[in-house]
């Protein structure tokens, strides 16, 4: 008797969770279908959908809540007008022009947009993040509760979300089946080249699908606010990350190319989410996490690693992958001896001047800024190692930096061990975590690797940091002392700056040694041609795992130093995943292939907002996100980075100028071959 009552209770809970899961899954499904639409039609894996969803939602609340527009007109503007126009602009102004670029460079562009778009929106609209909006849906009295079959409670918002998504999916199906645009989209997906030869303008099809996918993203952005805890009472773009991750998981179920799989995958993941919340016991810490914030990341990671369709897709060639242009040789390798000497003298003079000013005249504020620049240069060198040498994109360097910072903190707080030892232990832990994390996903490479590392960064941020053995406890705080090391006290600003510079130089030299030695050779071979590299015996996944671990350790050392400089782990200010996206963007924009590129990015990251934006132009520091975010577009054309590109151009110009004046000199300076080989 009691057993049957209990069973009836379980059944009822299961059904209730099912009905609660559908509207959540509906939101995942909308975003997942957006991913699939743009990936299929333009080969862009658009992570910026999170930003697009945010912009529609923020527009809606700006209009409806703050300016008291009626619901229908606010929805009309925010979803039906703003979202498709934004999609059209992105396609017309950006993605159309990078059609032939590789999938990874398109991914970098979308990351730049993910950083830039919300900040641009906030600057233009004067969006006030302190204003608590409250979770307001687009349905009047959305919180009204109905009871399905007399017992299962659902709110009006939830019903609306589900109905709208089903209607959108049906409309999409009808569009594909019955309209000319739908037929053309299907044709373009099959073969863009052949479709164009048949007289269809593939560009228009691409615009259409971008508008459509942007509309879906905007709709999801508005619909999901009432049902998503991470959007809470303050609407921020980061609140959409868990949704984007779940949607990615749903899209991955259909290998990013199947719309029906994306939709049903989204609904299924929504139901799985609520079933886990209902049935998984809470008495175990790990199981309790799985009901809450950890779930989307675990689902995504599991799908990427275990879903057989993805392995098959990676094994077969990706038809949408453009031919990535060969990375040109570095400018430094082709310049003449005179140019090299000139460059070195100028660099020496510059650093001497900066050094004299810093240690002789600079005030505390500028010494601290310069120390920050040096430390961020170290952190950014980790991106130089993995992206510049390894040729892959990882989005969790910020997590490794945080591990280094927390390592220094934990060792100092718990066991009173030197922070330097703690930082190095953090680096070792980061390297080990990097290896464990990358072994299952490194074979997949490309965008899958980027997505998996993003999922890990968000998992760390939403789950792991809260544990006291990682992020420390409220009671102890997150204080970190400056080190005392080899009998030298590094607690003064100047001494700590010297220590940071010494570590930067050491890391830079080690990276150059790696680049020029066996490990670097294997990586350069892999970048040039993976099949050819394997044919001479390069073990591709092993080389990449090694370089990923090295990069993780470097990031952790930088993170540890940053904590010592600030005398505490400023996790929220320095190490959240959104910041990590910006790190990657600024490094690849300025030049990820050289040590100098990483250092220039470090200096730009710290000094640029302070000096150029704020003091010279009187602008808000947030403009840096906008400027560098949009500059990521240049990555498709200049994957070597803007600074390296500029160097090469000015070098070519100077050599041409010299050639005109003295042909003999030009012969000596034409290339490295002439310089080393021909002369007796």
């Amino acid at each position, binding site marked *: 008797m009691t057993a049957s009552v209990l069973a009836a209770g379980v059944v009822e809970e299961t059904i209730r969770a099912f009905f609660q899961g559908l509207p959540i899954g509906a939101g995942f499904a909308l975003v997942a279908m957006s991913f699939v639409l743009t990936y299929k039609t333009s080969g862009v894996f658009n992570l910026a959908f999170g930003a697009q969803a945010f912009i529609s939602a923020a527009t809606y609340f700006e209009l409806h809540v703050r300016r008291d527009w009626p619901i229908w007109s606010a929805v009309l503007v925010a979803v039906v007008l703003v979202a498709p126009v934004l999609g059209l602009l992105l396609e017309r102004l950006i993605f159309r022009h990078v059609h032939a670029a590789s999938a990874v460079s398109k991914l970098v562009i979308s990351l730049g947009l993910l950083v830039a778009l919300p900040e641009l929106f906030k600057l233009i609209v004067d969006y006030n993040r302190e204003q608590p909006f409250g979770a307001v849906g687009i349905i009047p009295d959305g919180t009204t509760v109905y009871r399905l079959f007399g017992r299962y409670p659902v709110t009006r918002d939830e019903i609306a979300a589900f109905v709208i998504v089903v209607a959108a999916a049906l409309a999409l199906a009808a569009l594909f089946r019955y309209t000319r645009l739908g037929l053309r989209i299907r044709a373009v997906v099959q073969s863009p080249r052949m479709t164009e030869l048949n007289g269809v303008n593939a560009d228009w099809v691409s615009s259409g699908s971008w508008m459509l996918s942007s509309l879906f993203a905007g709709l999801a952005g508005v619909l999901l606010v009432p049902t998503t805890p991470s959007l809470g009472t303050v609407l921020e773009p980061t609140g959409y990350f868990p949704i984007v991750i779940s949607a990615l998981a749903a899209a991955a179920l259909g290998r990013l190319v199947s719309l029906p799989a994306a939709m049903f995958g989204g609904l299924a993941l929504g139901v799985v989410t609520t079933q886990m919340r209902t049935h998984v016991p809470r008495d175990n810490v790990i199981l309790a996490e799985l009901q809450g914030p950890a779930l989307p990341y675990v689902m995504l990671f599991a799908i990427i690693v275990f879903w057989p369709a993805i392995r098959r897709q990676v094994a077969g060639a990706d038809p949408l992958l453009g031919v990535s242009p060969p990375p040109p040789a570095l400018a430094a390798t082709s310049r003449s001896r005179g140019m090299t000497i000139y460059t070195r003298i100028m660099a020496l003079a510059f650093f001497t001047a900066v050094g004299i000013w810093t240690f002789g005249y600079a005030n505390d504020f500028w010494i601290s800024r310069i120390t920050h620049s040096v430390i961020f240069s170290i952190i950014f060198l980790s991106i130089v190692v993995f992206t510049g040498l390894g040729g892959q994109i990882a989005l969790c360097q910020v997590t490794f930096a945080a591990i280094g910072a927390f390592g220094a903190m934990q060792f100092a707080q718990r066991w009173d061990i030197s922070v330097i030892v703690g930082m190095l232990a953090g680096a070792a832990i980061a390297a080990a975590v990097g290896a464990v994390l990358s072994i299952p996903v490194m074979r997949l490479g490309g965008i899958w690797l980027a997505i998996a590392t993003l999922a890990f960064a968000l998992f760390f941020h939403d789950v792991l940091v809260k544990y006291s053995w990682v992020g420390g406890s409220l009671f102890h705080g997150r204080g970190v002392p400056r080190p005392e090391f080899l009998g030298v006290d590094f607690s003064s600003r100047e001494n700590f700056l010297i220590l940071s510079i010494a570590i930067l130089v050491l890391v830079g030299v080690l990276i150059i040694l790696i680049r020029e030695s066996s490990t*670097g050779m294997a990586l350069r071979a892999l970048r040039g041609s993976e099949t050819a590299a394997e044919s001479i015996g390069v073990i591709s996944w092993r080389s990449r795992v090694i370089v990923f671990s090295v990069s993780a350790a470097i990031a952790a050392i930088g993170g540890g130093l940053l904590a010592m400089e600030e005398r505490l782990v400023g996790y929220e200010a320095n190490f959240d995943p959104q910041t990590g996206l910006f790190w990657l963007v600024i490094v690849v924009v300025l030049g990820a292939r050289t040590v100098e590129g990483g250092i220039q990015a470090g200096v730009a990251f710290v000094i640029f907002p302070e000096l150029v934006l704020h003091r010279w132009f009187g602008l808000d520091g947030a403009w840096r996100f906008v400027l560098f975010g949009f500059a990521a577009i240049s990555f498709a054309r200049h994957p070597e980075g803007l600074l390296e590109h500029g160097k090469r151009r000015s070098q070519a110009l100077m050599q041409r100028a010299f050639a005109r004046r003295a042909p003999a000199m030009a012969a000596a300076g034409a290339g490295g071959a002439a310089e080393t080989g021909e002369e007796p």
Partner: protein
Amino acid sequence: MSLLAADGITKRFAGITALDDVHIAVDEGERVGLIGPNGAGKTTLFNCLLGLLRPDAGSVSFDGQSITRLPIYRRARLGIGRTFQRVELFSGSSVRDHLLFAHRIRSGTGALWKDLLGLGLPKPAEIERCDTLLESLGLGGMGDEPIEALSLGQSRLVEVARALMTQPRVVLLDEPSSGLDRAETTALADTLARIQTEQGFGLLLVEHDVELVATFTERTYVLNFGKLITHGPTSEVMRDDEVRAAYLGDFVAGTS
């Protein structure tokens, strides 16, 4: 026992039998040809030997050891070198770098700690070895050239040089004549023959160009529709009616 041997290789793609019970063997120091018209299964067999494809049945062995389940890089490290039909070079690297990379991988000196201590930098002796090989292939003085600056014929020679730097015991050449004219093909064949005689590795030439196979190889296998139709000394194979039929069509073979 042969150096590189494939026994009873069968491979099916979605119901189509691309290879049906194929046997092939290459010994150290000999030059063997593998010919067949388009779609005969040459490339499929090549990929099974190298580990790009796993056969549905049959086994591949090298020096008496089964390598059927080994990944590509393990086979390369055992001593199987190859070139590509569509040239696969390391874009962004110089000619000498290609040889240096191959030498480093083969000699297995690449440990991270050595690199970090500065022991992994290229040594003068290694660079000299690379330049000696380039010299003997007629690419002397081109070590510093970027790989993009080379002609197709030169690129193929760099591929051969790269394969040779791994000290292979057998080299598989995938249609080395494609894209080259008659004079370039002859020059390539002459260089290959000379190097092969000097170093004594086994050579398997997968070719389209029957004339090159006829002049260059000692033994030849002929594939058609996934089946081995004949094999033997090249001069005999070239006179075989069935081979002529496969290449020239039944009508011509019947009237001749």
